[in-house]
């Protein structure tokens, strides 16, 4: 099996109120240098070895997992995972 790890974040330039609040809390708690904090989503799943991961993941993200109006995504694939 292949293990797919998908990361979804708000696009650059889109205001991230959550990221901003987290950053302000960090700065107030002894991490004054923290900058450009973004809060995103992490989704993991397995797909069968024969799956065309690039195509499937792209379709899943475009259809449901990410909203292209405001979000972008990236993913990594680990091959040869035993079930």
């Amino acid at each position, binding site marked *: 099996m292949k293990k797919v790890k998908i990361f979804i974040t708000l696009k650059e330039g889109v205001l991230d109120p*959550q990221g901003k609040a987290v950053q302000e809390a960090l700065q107030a708690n002894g991490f004054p240098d923290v900058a450009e904090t973004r809060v995103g989503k992490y989704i993991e799943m397995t797909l069968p070895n024969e799956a065309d991961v690039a195509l499937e993941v792209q379709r899943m993200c475009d259809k*449901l997992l990410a*909203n292209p*109006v405001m979000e972008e995504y990236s993913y990594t694939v680990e091959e040869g995972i035993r079930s």
Partner: protein
Amino acid sequence: MKFAVIVFPGSNCDRDMYHAVRDGLGEEVDLVWYENANLADYDAILLPGGFSYGDYLRSGAIASVSNVLNQIKMKAEAGTPVLGVCNGFQILLETGLLPGAMLRNEKLKFMCHYETLVVERDDTMFTSGYEKGQQIEIPIAHGEGNYYCDDVTLEELKQNNQIVFTYKNNPNGSRADIAGIVNKAGNVLGMMPHPERAVEDLLGSSDGLAMFQSVLQHWREMYVTTS
């Protein structure tokens, strides 16, 4: 006229919507569970507020890929009035029936209070009962009502005259103070404020009733002939 209020797991303003149509407007209305729904006989579709599917993934995202949305898209294409309020608006954005997306409120707070809306258009099937520039009091209740779209989309919305309601005092950070937009054809309206919660003075405002009356008026003009 026969209205359908679509009920998803997690909808929680469905009964308010039902009450607004049945008792406020005095027309026929059904609560329609999203699974195996048959919308063929309905003259208008109402997508109520709430937290469909617990807002998992994104508000409205999972409801937007349910089967009933295919029927709603077909009804929308055929010209049937479709009104999405709050979570219903989020669902319409997620399906692509309306452009844009919702972000968390700028101040991250869930807000539940009356807002003053400015009626930007009085020539839609949803707003003919108002006057352009009129200010109406309608309650909001949302944590993710910060309307977002890119510059190109905003320009299109303006050029096509799709902005129907704006906030007088923007509570959530929405671009261009947008509170409600309509599709190009004019029969799909999405808005974050809740007109269905403002249909009788006893509850604080009846400013929302004219929206339902407008839809009814439009339908009568279209389909009811008087001799």
